[in-house]
């Protein structure tokens, strides 16, 4: 019963929704119609962006209310959320993951490392940025990007 009391006392945690993000509409948004399944791929990140993505889906920012949902397999997914510079060992798995996704599909590069290798540019284990391995449709800059920026990127995909 302690949990019941806690639920009652906590009430709603989710912050009110900010205004819709600006930006040209992606062609796939029409196809998705407000429902987007997301597969997170860590191509070699330091996990900072993962924590922010987890923050984006937590009760405070609640990315699910805009129609985005995390799924367990790229076959179920529409969007691949790629973090980190692509290391040598993760280049082929990243290609295969994106290839496993059914069309229409989008790749979103989250964080500076995913966009241009950030801190790790030139490292011996780094193959390149995400755009060197798979075509990127949307980028979320930041090291790490704030959860509301990640949510804004997802809202551009879902259109809600």
């Amino acid at each position, binding site marked *: 019963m302690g949990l019941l009391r806690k*639920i009652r006392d906590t009430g709603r*945690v989710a912050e009110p929704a900010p205004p819709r993000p600006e930006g040209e509409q992606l062609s796939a948004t029409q196809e998705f*119609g*407000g429902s987007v399944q997301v597969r997170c791929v860590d191509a070699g990140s330091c996990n900072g962006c993962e924590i922010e993505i987890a923050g984006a889906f937590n009760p405070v920012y*609640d990315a699910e209310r805009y129609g985005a*949902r995390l799924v*367990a397999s790229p076959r*179920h997914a529409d969007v691949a959320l790629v973090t980190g510079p692509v290391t040598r060992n993760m280049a082929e798995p990243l290609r295969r993951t994106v290839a496993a996704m059914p*069309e*229409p599909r989008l790749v979103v590069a989250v964080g500076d490392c995913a966009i241009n290798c950030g801190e790790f540019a030139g490292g011996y284990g780094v193959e390149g940025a995400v755009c060197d391995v798979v075509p990127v449709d949307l980028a979320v800059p930041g090291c790490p990007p704030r959860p509301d920026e990640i949510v804004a990127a997802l809202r551009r995909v879902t259109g809600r």
Partner: protein
Amino acid sequence: MVGYTAIVLQVGAVVAGAPLLTGLMRQTRARLEGRAGAGVLQPWRDVRKLLRKEPITPVGTGPAFRWAPPLLVATSLVLAVLVPLVSTDTPVRARADLILVVSLLALGTLALALAGLDTGTAFGGMGASREMTIAALVEPTILVAVFALSIPAGSTNLPVIVAGAADQPARLTSPAGLLAIAALAVAVLAESGRLPVDNPSTHLELTMVHEAMVLEYAGPDLALVEFGAQLRLTVLLGLLASLFAPWGIATGASLTAVLLALLLVVLKVMVLGMALAAAEVFWAKLRLFRVPELLAGSFLLALLAVTASYFLGAEGGGAR
């Protein structure tokens, strides 16, 4: 004529309402967890989008993989026709045997398990193995609970049981009735793959039972798998509602009674769904090898229900 209308209304409500029920359950969970939630219509948006995505048949899979999702939905649709949700006086009332209902549910499970094995991946095999283990252990509970329910009614025919329970509410509050409710509730949780038996939204393959079998599906096939799972849940909750809260169900050939019954069953299933979602907030998934203990406990409840039904001489049971 009214009977056919009842069936059409029933199937229509189930088909239209299954994703809505899932949406409602997700919303309930979201609100209890302090989130805003995606809205009750979100599962329908998911299905619509999935139907428009590219269908994929991976190399190395076969006909079992291709045909399992349509077969799953087909069995659920046949169940939606058979189970008396809205009226007990339909043209199929002679065919709606409770054992047949249970077996059709098992057929759907079997089809998906074969599809999991057909992929040849470790996940598919693991999901199939776990799913069939749980299905095997849930069978005795369900059939003995069916036995318990059929004793006061004198038959395993569903409309007869439901009409009998509507006439004599005392059957449901008797010890036998309550025990049967408890046993069937656990069995429904296991059959529909909900907490604490299985977590439908997990990402950890080690904890997956149902999800592991469908990791390979994409696009329209995935839409059918998700829709089929939602249909099964709706039909099972509707079955629970009809068996244990049958008041309002139409027993004659009156259109107004049928419409009223439709409204009531929608309400009942909504309440059951919300209650289940709220309970799930408080439950954690059981370790896989604890699930047989849970199922054994529910089997014991069902056995006690039969014994109570016989010895405590509930309505028409006992020495006849």
